[in-house]
């Protein structure tokens, strides 16, 4: 028996009932001043906590609680036990219905968005899985959106420019306005 085990035993057996050390524990306590002191501290705490052991309801409160519980029981019927169909309904039908609802909402939102002039071609191209980086840049440059930065963050811009050979980029950049060129030079780290 060591101190760790002795303390563990004392803590595990510390309840509102009287704690009676086993022979092993008692032998350790007799020979260990530290654990013996710890045991004494727990006994003091045990005595103090007796003060809130007898917290309970008064007879009037008991009666009040019983009456209100009965009243409640009369107003609320207990829920019937869940049968196999209920469980199946909860586990399968509800999640499937929820997913379907989300899909319908998403589809509606997508359709609505695609009707906004200017956004439709961009969204359409962005959603294409075969789009090349050059095409993406072209769409990007041709877009009529004022705030280009709202569509792509800087990291994706860098990725696009890194992927495009300088010559091709230069060709594409011939058709753009001065404002767009300025924006690109600032945001895309292009060197022409």
């Amino acid at each position, binding site marked *: 028996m060591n101190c760790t085990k002795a303390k563990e035993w004392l803590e595990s057996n510390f*309840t509102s009932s009287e704690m009676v050390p086993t022979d092993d524990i008692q032998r350790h306590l007799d020979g260990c001043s530290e654990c013996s002191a710890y045991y004494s501290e727990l006994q003091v*705490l045990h005595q103090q906590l007796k003060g*809130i052991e007898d917290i309970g309801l*008064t007879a009037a409160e008991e009666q009040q609680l019983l009456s209100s*519980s009965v009243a409640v029981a009369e107003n609320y019927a207990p829920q019937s036990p869940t049968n196999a169909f209920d469980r199946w309904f909860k586990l399968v039908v509800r999640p499937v219905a929820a997913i379907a609802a989300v899909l319908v909402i998403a589809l509606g939102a997508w359709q609505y968005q695609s009707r906004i002039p200017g956004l439709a071609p961009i969204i359409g191209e962005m959603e294409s899985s075969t789009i090349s980086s050059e095409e993406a840049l072209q769409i990007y440059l041709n877009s009529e959106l004022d705030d280009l930065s709202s569509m792509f963050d800087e990291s994706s811009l860098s990725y696009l420019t890194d992927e495009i050979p300088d010559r091709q980029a230069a060709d594409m950049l011939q058709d753009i306005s001065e404002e767009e060129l300025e924006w690109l030079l600032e945001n895309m780290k292009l060197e022409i």
Partner: protein
Amino acid sequence: MIPDEKLLIERASQGDKAAFTALVRQYQNRIFAFIMRMTANRESALDLTQDTFLAAFQNLAGFRKEALFSTWLFTIAANKTRNYLRRSSREMEMPEGYDVVSHDTRPDIDFEKKQTQELLLAAVAGLPVKQRAVFNLRYFEQLKFHEIARIQGTSVSAVKTNFAEALVKLKKKLGGR
């Protein structure tokens, strides 16, 4: 589980009010005492005890018969109390000298005893909520650590750690009284 109790639960789940009343009578003191030591507020403890039994009655069908009915009730009571404490922003550790509002109007309890009781309740109520629940369930209700772990939805080792920490804090708070 006591055979009679099993029968009472069965009958109460079928809507038998008398069976439900018998279950309330059997457990209301323990549940109230647990909540009272958690909240240190008599009025709230009474309300939460009633809420606990209402929830129990409504969900009796969901009670798994292999579990202990008392453990199930304490789980409901602990959840109700935790929500209450969260709502009333008491989850934070209460400051030293926290004033307990027990609203104890019982005439049969003398002033000195009442004062000591309030000081002790304040000390226990001053523990962080998890430690408070673990300490109350272990020390006063004498539930096993694995039962408390089930109630708290945590591991046995976490329960033991919380209990040990609660002991250290209580010894410090009550030392020299």
